[in-house]
């Protein structure tokens, strides 16, 4: 008997035009056995979160529900409250939003306390979960001092203390850097392997989970477009954005029995089907940038007098009309570099030139008039009014912009009229980012800085952003952004700089950068290496592979 079943599920929010723009679910139908792993894919706003929340009675949205949700043979609504809290665990997207207590220990105790377990049982549970998650070293720490990845692990651990039968995760890794995301994914898979928990997870970046899923559910605009196991899905699917690179490759060949959806199996496939192609040596083009937009020379910076230098002999150049990506691990100094470039902190030693002039020669505030504009990680931060319209049409001095200009920008960035009347916090992640960009572009900056602009965005929004940035560069602006997302870098950037230990370890044109590296590179590049040497992005890989389809391989087919 199926463990979870949705039968002809239809859901609509009570008001049209409310926060979720009246999204509904139409005829959702699927069933899972106990211990299954379901991966839900779809763009933002396709109804994934709504569906996930409907599976957890305590946080179900208000609205009209038709159809049935059956859990362990009974209607979900008939489930007693205690069982619902203990047996169904829910992990949210934002690691900072979910925790309630100061210390890790108290947070782990929160759920068992609510269930009324005895103090001894609670202590035992915490000890067990701590061992499973490896949290011994941070059990007494303040949660707020932990990294994003650690916080999300604590959130997951806090939910697992009740040993739930069903674990629901709503885009749990979208706010994390790749390494933390990797660690988190490993733990989720381990939970599935060792505890037999049924897992339902929604993600934009499916690279890790696609291979291990039992079933894939694909939603678009609230409609269920597919519910299959991964191989069948890949065979039927058109070249969907959210598929991992290996899956896209196999999908374009319409294979019946797909090998595993991992980069290495894709590499095997390529090895077996294509001839080894000699690769051209890249001409070392160092110092191809002259730094007319931003030039950092031999910079030194530390936050405290005796502290370690966060920026240690760093050189950096960015040119007008080019898009420059900065990547590197957490704590390597990327954000500090941004703060230095945007004048929020000053160097201890070294020089910074913005648009040819020393940064110190700019009077206070002049740096931000028609020169540098920064998009923060949370675009909400720069909004101060109650409606988007009022906010973006008012300049920092308090005067109103010409409304026609504002409307032109809105059209260009795909912001519809009805979004303008909403409160900034009623907009989705992609929408608020575009609105913030309108606000910044109205200042007519020459240099645009973006701090991790791709966090939490789906592939479609990322593509739109990529197109916009390229347009802005073509207009002569200098675009500089920090990101962990190598695929986005491959699509968008002209130059890439890798920061490690406060230094710029590598600063190259994008193609050269990606082709040379084995970690800071794209899956497509790794798969095609030695066979399709010019490929960086998924689409390049697919088109190369398809165009050379009839080649005989090094081994026989």
């Amino acid at each position, binding site marked *: 008997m199926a463990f979870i079943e949705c039968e002809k599920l239809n859901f609509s929010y009570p008001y049209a035009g409310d926060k979720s723009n009246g999204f509904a679910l139409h005829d959702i139908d699927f069933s899972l056995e106990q211990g299954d792993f379901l991966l839900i894919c779809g763009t933002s706003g396709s109804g994934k979160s709504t569906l996930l929340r409907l599976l957890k009675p*305590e946080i179900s949205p208000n609205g009209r529900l038709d159809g049935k949700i059956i859990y362990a043979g009974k209607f979900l609504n008939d489930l007693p409250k205690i069982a619902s809290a203990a047996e169904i665990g829910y992990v949210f997207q934002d690691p*900072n939003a979910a925790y*309630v207590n*100061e210390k890790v220990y108290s947070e782990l105790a929160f759920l068992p306390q609510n269930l*009324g377990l005895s103090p001894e049982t609670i202590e035992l549970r915490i000890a067990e979960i701590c061992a499973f998650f490896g949290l011994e070293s941070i059990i007494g720490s303040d949660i707020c001092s932990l990294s994003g990845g650690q916080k999300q692990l604590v959130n997951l651990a806090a939910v697992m203390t009740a040993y739930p039968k069903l674990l629901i995760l709503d885009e749990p890794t979208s706010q994390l850097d790749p390494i933390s995301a990797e660690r988190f994914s490993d733990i989720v898979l381990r939970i599935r392997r060792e505890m037999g928990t049924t897992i339902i997870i929604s993600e934009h970046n499916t690279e890790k989970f696609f291979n291990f899923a039992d079933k894939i559910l694909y939603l678009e605009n609230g409609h269920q477009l597919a519910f299959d196991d991964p191989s069948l899905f890949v065979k039927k699917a058109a070249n969907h954005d959210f598929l991992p690179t290996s899956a896209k490759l196999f999908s374009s060949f319409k294979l019946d029995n797909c090998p595993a959806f991992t980069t290495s199996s894709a590499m095997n496939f390529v090895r077996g089907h294509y001839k080894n192609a000699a690769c051209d040596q890249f001409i070392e083009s160092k110092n191809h940038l002259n730094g007319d937009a931003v030039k950092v020379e031999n910079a030194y910076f530390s936050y405290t007098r005796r502290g370690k230098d966060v920026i240690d002999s760093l050189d950096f150049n960015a040119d007008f009309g080019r898009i420059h990506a900065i990547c590197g691990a957490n704590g390597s100094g990327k954000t500090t570099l941004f703060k230095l470039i945007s004048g*929020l902190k000053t160097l201890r030693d070294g020089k910074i030139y913005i648009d040819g002039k020393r940064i110190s020669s700019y009077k206070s505030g002049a740096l931000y008039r028609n020169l540098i504009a920064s998009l923060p990680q*949370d675009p909400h931060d720069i909004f101060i009014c109650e409606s988007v319209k009022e906010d973006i049409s008012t300049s920092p001095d308090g005067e109103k912009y010409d409304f026609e200009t504002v409307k032109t920008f809105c059209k260009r960035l795909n912001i519809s009229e009805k979004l303008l009347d909403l409160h900034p916090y009623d907009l989705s992640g992609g929408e608020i980012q575009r609105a913030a960009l309108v606000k910044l572009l109205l200042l007519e900056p020459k240099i645009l800085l973006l701090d991790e602009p791709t966090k939490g965005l789906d592939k479609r929004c990322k593509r739109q952003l990529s197109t916009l940035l390229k347009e802005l560069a073509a207009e002569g602006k200098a675009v500089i952004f920090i990101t962990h997302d190598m695929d986005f870098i491959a699509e968008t950037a002209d130059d890439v700089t890798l920061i490690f230990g406060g230094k710029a370890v590598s600063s190259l044109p994008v193609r050269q950068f990606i082709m040379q590296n084995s970690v800071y590179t794209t899956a497509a590049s790794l798969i095609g290496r030695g066979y399709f040497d010019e490929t960086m992005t998924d689409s390049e890989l697919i088109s190369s592979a398809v165009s050379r389809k009839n080649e005989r391989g090094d081994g026989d087919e």
Partner: protein
Amino acid sequence: MKKFSQLNSGVLFLFFLSVIGITMFTQNVYLRAISLVISIINACFFDVITDYFKDFRFYLAVFLVITVSNPLFVHRGNTVLFYVKNTPITLEAMAYGANFSLSMIAVLAWFRIFSTLMTAEKIVEIYGKRFATLGLIAALTLRYVPEFKRRFAEIADAHRSAGLICEDTWFEKVKSYLKIFMSLAEFSFEKSANTAVSMNARGYLLHKRTQISHRKFQFNELLVLILTLVITVCVIVFSLTHKLSTSFYPSFKTDFSMLPTILFTILTLIPTSFELEDRLKWHLSNAKN
């Protein structure tokens, strides 16, 4: 025997309440003197003494101000030192001021020790048992404060690089800060919704929450509790029956009662005894190794 700081927070709270309360409300010079001296001794043990010395000038100022100002308001007392515009400045009034300011300094020292022991966690522990809602709100507030401080700085940076901050005049500065604060407020309101959802998803309000007590109530705590209560009651009784009063007006006269004075000394030395025993045991066990 545990350290003093590890005792049950309710017991600790009562202890400090009674010691500070007695110091404040008794007029008896002996009790206040004992309180002052032993508070300084305890401050040494609890590593607060360095802060105390840093503020020494402040305490000196307090002492002088109160001692000198008291005669300006209170004109009773027999020994007149001199006249200021027909109002007498009496020795007794100054002595009263001195007495009061010494007790205030003692109270400040006890509060210092209190602050070091009563960390945020302990505050929540007291509330947690009876006043679950209040305790939870306190816990949540404590977890939000560091995060909001950080967010304020982040939003300030974002505003600055969007050209929204203007620091020309004091008024402009205030306005800019208020804009940042409003952004922080909006962010925090949305945040509260997420926290509420997270709490509900983990079964908050189901039924009675178990309170986790890390330790069981031990003999030591009971002992301290009983001592505190008994000694406090004794002192109160003696005060009410006028065996402990000190009066400055019309002239200095003080009572001395052996029993409550000795008992109060014992009370104030409780933290010291815990610390001494702890250190003694530590050195002994180290010496063996």
